[in-house]
């Protein structure tokens, strides 16, 4: 798994908005399937109930760029150097080291307020996450955006083992996000989605001497989301499963499970 997905541009409807997020950009393919846009918002959409906006400006080094992409759409880019940056709403999610982007498609003839995205940044050397929103406004054809600051994510179940330290957090939309760091002797091979339509969706790895993994486990009514992080430590292969369940009649739950198995070695040498 590589960091080329920094360029991931999502495709999705955008809640209560005059814009839709459409595929595009290069070089990576879109990571979320396209869906139709939804109704026009006549007033600026409120932040989701789980996202509490606070006064004051976001950190100065968080940068926002909303610009036409030359194909009739807009790119919304959030940058913060030295951080894993995430940008999402209910339907589309992207993340990457230093910056990430979603592609937005304004609807012709629609004016007024547009919609809201959630941004989060996590330092590459830590697990503390800063959160805010991007308020998008449309004048009918051109998008503009404003960064806003929100309360940090509410903690959810965490995980600690000799190999990995993971912090779970409520994503503000009814699901979870998990951020994991790893011991220096551990080599992280990858992180994948084992319940979604595409195995590379919603799992991001920033490689390096101290790798950082972000897993998004969005609310999936009546069902569940599962992600797996693969690691090696010497001759031991390790799989860390992270599972979120959203079964009707139960509170959403987050579960971690680490399993290992010695890797066979070739004989004769």
């Amino acid at each position, binding site marked *: *798994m590589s960091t080329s997905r920094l360029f991931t541009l999502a495709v999705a409807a955008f809640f209560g908005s005059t814009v839709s997020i459409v595929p595009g950009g290069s070089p990576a393919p879109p990571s979320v399937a396209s869906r139709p846009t939804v109704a026009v918002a006549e007033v600026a959409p409120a932040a989701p109930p789980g996202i509490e906006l606070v006064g004051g400006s976001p950190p100065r080094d968080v940068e926002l760029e909303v610009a036409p992409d030359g194909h009739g759409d807009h790119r919304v880019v959030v940058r913060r150097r030295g951080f894993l940056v995430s940008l999402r709403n209910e339907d589309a999610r992207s993340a990457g080291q230093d910056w990430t982007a979603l592609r937005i498609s304004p609807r012709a003839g629609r004016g007024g307020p547009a919609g809201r995205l959630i941004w989060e940044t996590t330092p590459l050397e830590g697990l503390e996450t800063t959160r805010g929103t991007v308020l998008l406004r449309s004048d009918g054809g051109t998008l503009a955006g404003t960064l806003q600051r929100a309360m940090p994510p509410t903690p959810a179940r965490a995980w600690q083992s000799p190999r990995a330290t993971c912090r779970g957090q409520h994503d503000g939309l009814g699901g979870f996000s998990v951020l994991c760091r790893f011991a220096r002797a551990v080599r992280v091979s*990858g992180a*994948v989605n*084992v319940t979604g339509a595409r195995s590379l969706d919603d799992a991001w790895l920033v490689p390096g001497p101290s790798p950082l993994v972000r897993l998004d486990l969005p609310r999936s009514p009546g*069902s569940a989301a599962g992600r797996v992080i*693969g690691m090696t430590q010497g001759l031991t292969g390790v799989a860390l499963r992270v*599972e979120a*369940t959203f079964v009707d009649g139960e509170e959403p739950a987050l579960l971690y499970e680490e*399993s290992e198995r010695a890797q066979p070695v070739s004989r004769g040498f």
Partner: protein
Amino acid sequence: MRPILPAILLLGAAAMGCAGPVVATSTEVPRALGSAARGGSLVIDPACLVAWIADTDNHVLHRVDLLSDRVVSSPVEGAPEQVVLAGDGRLAVTLRDRNQVALLQEDEDGGVEPVATVDVACDPFGLAVTPQGEILVTSGYCHTVTALDLGTLEARWSAPVAREPRGVVVTADGARAFVTHVVGDAITVLDLGDAPPTPRRVRALGGLYRNRVDAALGAGTLHPAAALAYTAVLSESGSRLFVPHLAEQNGESTTRTVPGAYGGVPVEEETSFASVAVIAVHGEHVVGDAAGLAPREGLQKGAFVAADPSADFALPPTPAPCRQARAAAIAGDRLLVASQGTGELFELDARALDPAMSVRRVHVVGEGPKGVDAAAGLAAVWSQLSHEIAVISLGSGAATRRVLAADPLPPDVAAGRRLFFTERDRRISRDGRACAACHPDGRDDGLVWKLGAGPRQTPTLVGRLGRGPFGWQAKHARLEDNMRETMSRLGGGGLTEVELTRLATFLREGLAAPSHPSSPTDALAARGRAIFTSEAVGCSGCHHVETEFSDRTLHDVGSRSATDASAAFRTPPLLFVGASAPYFHDGRYATLEKLLADNLDRMGQTSRLSGDDLAALAAFLRTL
């Protein structure tokens, strides 16, 4: 057995008014319970902390007071398979060998007296009680679910279901029942508001989540088939249904060489792993298995090995726990699974997407555990082979075991039975797979295995091993020699001659054949018998009626496929053929009707038979 209950539990039970058994007269019609109850080989009455145990071997119902250790053993008229609390001091049991359900009344001494019995479809196994006052009964061989009136045992309805149903559970509102099967990858759902209900099949088994995880981790073997779903249990909230089963790889070799991993060393992976399907009760789908999942190819592209060949990473499935998951119970977030093949009780994390992948604790409980229930922080397990109860504190893990009865089986049969059920014996198979893992109850798993000379369906054993030669090619005059070759083909090291003799003795004398009508009971089947035995059609020319419907010799009937090493096959015995689909050596026909329609005079002269004649022939075969 020393009591392990804390004093507070004793006080709590006393406070529940459990001074003694509730007694009702035999003429009194019990009231409807108002809540669902699940049967098992062991069930705990939570009000009294009394365990009721169906001891199949001894034809006895044991009552074990978990507070005082007092045991009362009462004989019953047949081999009890499961027992369920029926309310007002009554119990219902399935008498598997007699094709009956008996209603029993507890007496003042803790014994039981029969109140009534009723005949049901053959091979009755699982039990549940609905809030509406019905007893649901599964009938394995006769693939039927029957609803009996709780008060009168009168049959309210009967519904045919898929092969080999076993466990049955009812939702708390009594709206639906879920039925498991030891064959196939689906459960059956019955809407109890309809009488009779129309069964719905929900494909939920086969390690769906586990396979995705294994594929992502670069394991070379996936296990898409399923079998041995003996039981099911609902979560305490009623929102999840847990179905332990075995996920199987029966169609491919399980020897793998994973590029970029192990230095190219071939890795022999397991043919099966234990899995627990977690089904959302509301939506009747596997939790985590939403529509539009990535296909297998997509997952393999995403596997770590493929994505990063330099990582040298591949994590094949770990050895599978809880083999032959014969019974299950729930205790909060713990899913308790009795592993018949290993003599263990597994505590699994019930919150996981596949709890079999999240083992919390393992308890050694006895040989052949097939009943488990939990209440008041305790788990009680009944082990049929060693005839003992284990009582485990789910807090401390402390356990006590007590043998309740002697083994009535002849020593050789008992020893052979242990060999038949025991998992992890690498002498029997490379991956420790037990005989019973493919031959549940001595029957078959409904699968076609790719082993040696070509694909071969698992044959039913029970009632078919009276005389040789044995095997599809009739190579072995002795059953022991045939088993030795089978174990060799499975990669096992081989049993001793004495052990093979014991195993053969058990297969011939210890397996209980389903008791079903042995002669045609209706006009259609009688007409089929006449066709079968007629010289013009000639079925009985090879399928000799007097010798298990087989002449035991090789015939080339044009059934050879491209993968078969030879063209001639031994005439298979037809006893119990009606419930041993698929058919032919390679399982190419899903039903008897499809086999007969495609016969083309290869076996007897059936091409001139009318559709009605073929239907009669199939009806007759189902009576064998």
